[in-house]
């Protein structure tokens, strides 16, 4: 199809024709086109269907405010629903589909909704679909859901990359129209660090769409030269294709740069888009204004568009929506559209001015004091009905109608911090009111709609902002430009019994607003929520104010009395992927690897996520078909001879200083003051509310030097807590702390042969015999011929066990050396599963037990809370509720039938009692199959558990409809007297 509606001129690169498809048909446009301008040039006006009534729709705008011409752009995993054709840059091979229709775009079966529209008035669904009850989920809702929605997702993972970045400036200029350029030039020439951001791919704003001259240059050329100067300056950064999406606290702005959306696919390694966080000292908002329509019967026909948009298509994109067009305006600006299109050789069938006293217009029939009352042509405008001043109605031929109801300043970003705009009666529009700190508003966004006014106010705004920063301002010499006054006589809608659209995407008509008023939904927020006006993808940019005006008329109040709706971020919709940036999929969060990771991977270990860490879970051997086989083997081999486990992930905090001991004494509920040098002690840490926070061992390496360990999960929180105590509670305690978690590779060596193995690693001058280095001893030693190391005789498994630490870079070497040394003992490395089994066999509490709701008493450690000293949490742990009858105690469980498995999360019920909440006795926290005992074992919290050893209870799992009889036993399943670990 030829470009039958392509005009002469425009800012297109005609030497670069581009082929594209829309709904399967192939078309041609030029570099510089948008999808919408190219389709219009090809004579295509019908581009979509409306949300509710599935009405045929074409573009009404040439920008990001577009409610109608929204399409599914691209194919496959890159399919983008709801993309505005009016800002989608044309590229070779672009393919787009119209959306939200069943059947073809021309013959949408759901257009039946339009015929039934009187049944679908505002809020109808709140009043019906209630009977029979069951039908809502089964019938009505699925029906509604299928019909609703707009475009569709591909359901495939987004293949593109997204970046985030951070920029800093003295002045952020938002918008590169006349006022933004004037502001940027002023600031740049004054030496300020300037960022100039514009959502368009060609800076200049309306200058690209108007025929005005600035000085002796065309608007577009002046913009080009301004950009050229700015680009040449080192203190200026120009971001095109970049929407400033939001204004946040303290001068922080979010901006979305569309890096690759104008090409078929991003270059390798390059992002599709970048979300910038811009830190600004000051900002000039020069976002321009948005034209508003006038509502009349069938004003949503394809071909009816905003007059300024029609002008933009003609002047910038050399495209017209029709060969014969009419213009309908209530202000002078609309007349420009008629003259510009005339100049381009387009036939103007009539200029309809609702004002009887509007200025005269030459070159086409001029109907003053007249209004458009209807539009004809279902799939595209063919003619309009006009009610003349005389009262008679005339039919006028028009393939397109340009409508201007006046201009609304784009105050959106001034509202993002809850600032309210104020009404300006001369403009019949809201202008900025209270502003975010540091923001100045310029140009049309501030109601200065003439080109000269925009230029001047841009320069003034920059000057004001810079003076605020104490910079001396060099004023920019501004060109001569038109300075026409705004002459507008408000006309929001043309009264008629037919439907006149306010929110075109959501199909909200004047009638709906009247119905909302009739039913008492009169506050603006109620109006929005009840009618859905302004809730569409265009966020009401062309509808909110008109709807408000209609409501004002109903209530008999003024528009400002009726209220305003404040705008929320983002200014235009932003892909969810852009907010996520690089932190998606497997890169959601960083990975932490243990010192033995490389070795473990070589051994074919199965890894598991533990917080940010990846830890070896078990080490499968050839022939093992289930994880249980591997884990049982690792446990038995460790208890039978010796096993090694990488425990580096445990938090390590170096605590030094003369008051270190006293500090620990207050951090832990049990005493530390008298811990001997070369000794280790277990510590229980409480939150101030008396609930267990963390536990671990603390080793005293010197009078003024301790190393304390935390659980893997709580390492960060415990460090923060210690700094709080050190800086905020006891600022004069002379203690210094620092994390050394990653500095040392630490391995547990456990089992009857642990000492024998270590004696081959530890340098001979260090005696680690039971006598010289007893249980709970520690020391700084050397290994493997002189490498500094630390040795702690502590046991999580209940075996004779040590933890040995070397500088992390040697961890890989140490595990290899220990495996070599351990060969004669069949030493192996065990994973976190075997570690877990052995700690449960030994009855040690861990994360499942320290779940943030358990006290020392619950853990069976009430005796550890020393009352002779102050320590965090000791006072509030005295509250009655935490020491009441029936409190949970941690105890052990084993199945009465040894073949039965246990499950974490089972609840306990007394035998003979019904299994319900009233009889709930507690729950299982941790379970394991104990290869040492040959049956499952568990730890759990049981009401008064300490006093109930020997009882038999039901362990129920209603989720699976199972239950098992369990016996309450001591939590210490293996070596309860602790002979092994002392041996």
């Amino acid at each position, binding site marked *: 199809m030829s470009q039958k509606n392509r005009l002469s001129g425009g800012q297109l690169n005609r030497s670069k024709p581009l082929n594209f498809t829309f709904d399967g048909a192939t078309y041609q446009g030029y570099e510089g086109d948008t999808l919408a301008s190219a389709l219009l040039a090809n004579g295509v006006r019908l581009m979509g269907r409306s949300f509710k009534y599935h009405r045929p729709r074409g573009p009404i705008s040439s920008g990001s405010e577009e409610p109608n011409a929204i399409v599914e752009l691209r194919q496959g995993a890159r399919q983008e629903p709801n993309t505005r054709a009016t800002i989608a840059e044309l590229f070779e091979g672009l393919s787009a589909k119209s959306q939200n229709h069943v059947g073809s775009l021309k013959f949408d079966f759901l257009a039946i909704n339009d015929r039934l529209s009187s049944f679908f008035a505002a809020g109808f669904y709140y009043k019906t679909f209630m009977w029979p009850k069951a039908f809502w989920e089964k019938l009505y809702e699925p029906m509604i859901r299928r019909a609703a929605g707009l475009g569709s997702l591909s359901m495939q993972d987004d293949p593109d990359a997204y*970046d985030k970045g951070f920029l800093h400036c003295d002045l952020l200029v938002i918008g590169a129209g006349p006022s933004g350029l004037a502001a940027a030039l002023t600031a740049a020439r004054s030496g300020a660090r300037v960022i100039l951001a514009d959502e368009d791919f060609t800076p200049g704003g309306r200058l690209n769409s108007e025929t005005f001259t600035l000085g002796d240059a065309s608007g577009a050329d002046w913009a080009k030269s301004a950009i050229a100067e700015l680009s040449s300056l080192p203190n200026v950064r120009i971001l095109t294709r970049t929407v400033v999406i939001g204004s946040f606290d303290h001068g922080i702005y979010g901006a979305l740069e569309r890096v690759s959306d104008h090409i078929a696919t991003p270059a390798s390694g390059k992002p599709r888009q970048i979300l910038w966080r811009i830190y600004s000292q000051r900002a000039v908002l020069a976002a321009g204004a948005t034209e508003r329509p006038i509502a009349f019967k069938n004003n949503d026909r394809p071909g009816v568009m905003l007059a300024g948009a029609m002008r933009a298509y003609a002047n910038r994109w050399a495209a017209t929506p029709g060969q014969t067009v009419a213009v309908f305006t209530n202000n002078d600006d609309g007349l420009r559209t008629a003259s510009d299109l005339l100049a381009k050789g387009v036939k103007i069938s009539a200029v309809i001015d609702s004002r009887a006293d509007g200025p005269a217009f030459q070159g086409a029939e001029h109907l003053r004091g007249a209004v458009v009352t209807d539009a004809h042509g279902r799939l595209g405008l063919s003619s309009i009905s006009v009610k003349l001043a005389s009262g008679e109605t005339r039919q006028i031929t028009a393939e397109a109608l340009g409508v201007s109801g006046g201009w609304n300043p784009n105050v959106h970003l001034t509202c993002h911090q809850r600032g309210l705009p104020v009404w300006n009666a001369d403009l019949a529009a809201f202008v900025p009111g209270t502003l975010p700190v540091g923001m100045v508003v310029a140009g049309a966004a501030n109601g200065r709609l003439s080109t000269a006014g925009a230029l001047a106010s841009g320069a003034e705004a920059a000057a004001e902002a810079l003076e605020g920063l104490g910079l001396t301002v060099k004023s920019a010499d501004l060109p001569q430009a038109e300075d026409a006054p705004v002459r507008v006589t408000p006309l929001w809608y043309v009264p008629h019994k037919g439907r006149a659209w306010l929110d075109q995407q959501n199909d909200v008509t004047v009638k709906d607003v009247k119905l909302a008023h009739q039913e008492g939904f009169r506050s603006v927020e109620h109006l929005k929520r009840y009618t859905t006006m302004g809730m569409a993808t265009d966020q009401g940019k062309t509808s909110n104010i008109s709807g408000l005006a209609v409501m004002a008329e109903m209530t008999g109040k003024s528009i400002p009395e009726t209220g305003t709706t404040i705008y929320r971020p983002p200014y235009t919709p932003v892909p969810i992927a852009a907010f996520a940036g690089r932190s998606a999929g497997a890169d959601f969060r960083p990975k932490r690897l243990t010192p033995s990771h490389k070795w473990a991977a070589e051994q074919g270990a199965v890894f598991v996520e533990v917080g940010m860490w990846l830890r070896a879970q078990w080490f499968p051997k050839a022939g093992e078909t289930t994880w249980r086989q591997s884990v049982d083997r690792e446990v038995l081999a460790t208890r039978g001879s010796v096993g090694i486990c990488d425990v580096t992930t445990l938090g390590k905090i170096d605590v030094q200083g003369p008051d270190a001991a006293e500090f620990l004494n207050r951090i832990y509920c049990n005493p530390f003051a008298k811990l001997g040098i070369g000794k280790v002690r277990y510590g229980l840490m409480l939150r101030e509310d008396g609930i267990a926070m963390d536990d671990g061992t603390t080793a005293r390496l010197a009078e003024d030097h301790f190393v304390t360990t935390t659980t893997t999960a709580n390492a960060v929180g415990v460090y923060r807590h210690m700094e709080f105590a050190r800086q905020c509670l006891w600022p004069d305690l002379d203690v*210094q702390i*620092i994390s050394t978690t990653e500095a040392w590779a630490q391995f547990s060596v456990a089992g009857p042969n642990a000492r024998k193995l270590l004696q081959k690693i530890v340098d001979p001058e260090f005696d680690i015999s039971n006598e010289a280095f007893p249980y709970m001893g520690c020391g700084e030693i050397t290994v493997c011929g002189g490498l*500094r190391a630390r040795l702690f005789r502590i046991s999580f498994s209940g075996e004779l066990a040590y933890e040995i630490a070397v500088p992390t*870079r040697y961890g890989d070497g140490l595990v290899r050396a220990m495996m070599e040394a351990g060969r004669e003992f069949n030493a192996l490395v065990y994973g976190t599963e075997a570690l877990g089994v052995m700690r449960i066999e030994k009855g040690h509490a861990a994360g499942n037990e320290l779940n943030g709701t358990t006290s020392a008493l619950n853990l069976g450690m009430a005796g550890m809370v020393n009352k002779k000293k102050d320590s965090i949490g000791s006072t509030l742990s005295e509250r009655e509720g935490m020491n009441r009858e029936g409190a949970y105690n941690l105890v052990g469980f084993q199945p009465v039938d040894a073949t039965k498995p246990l499950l974490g999360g089972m609840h306990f019920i007394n035998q003979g009692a019904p299994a319900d909440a009233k009889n709930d006795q507690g729950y299982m926290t941790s379970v394991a199959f104990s290869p040492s005992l040959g049956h499952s074992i568990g730890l759990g919290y049981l009401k008064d558990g300490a006093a109930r050893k020997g009882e038999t209870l039901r362990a129920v799992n209603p989720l699976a409809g199972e239950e098992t009889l369990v016996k309450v036993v001591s939590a210490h399943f293996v070596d309860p007297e602790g002979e092994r670990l002392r041996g």
Partner: protein
Amino acid sequence: MADPVLKMSPLKPITQLGGDLPRKDSFPGLTITERTDTALASLSARQGKPAEFHAAARAFFGFDLPAPARSATGGAYTAIWTGPEQWFIEAPFATHEDIAPILKRGFGDSASITEQTDGWGGFDLEGEGALSVFELLSNLDLGKLPSGGASRTVIEHLGCILVCRAAGKSYTVYGGRSSAASLHHALMTAAKSAL
């Protein structure tokens, strides 16, 4: 050439990325190099004897400890301010592998000293491209960070120490050693994107 690190100890060390030798990657205007030849320790002043402490520092290093957000270099040592009354000390690994006792001898009980050498994994970014890479990673205004500037910050959810060796062209990023692979991945991804 063989890295001296690798001969020092009876046990064979590996780099933070798990290799035998430091990894190096090149981009237009930037090289990213794994830093393995640095010994690190934290130096914290104890309370009540600031004069003694700072005198010891001056005597030991031959320069005054740097102010907040700054680093200072002299002889074998670079001191990086990391917190109130706390500095990280860099020295050549080959000669200062046991940096903690070395410092201890200089400061006695006026300071608390903790070995940090393997607590961190560092990467050196050399070249004019560094700033546009950091623009995608760090919220700091690095354009304004002078030579010798240093700051702790967050990169891709990782706590890092960033040292400016030469403004605009030479930087070191230290991140937790266990997440060195993730930090390296972030640096590489940003470099591919920016350069």
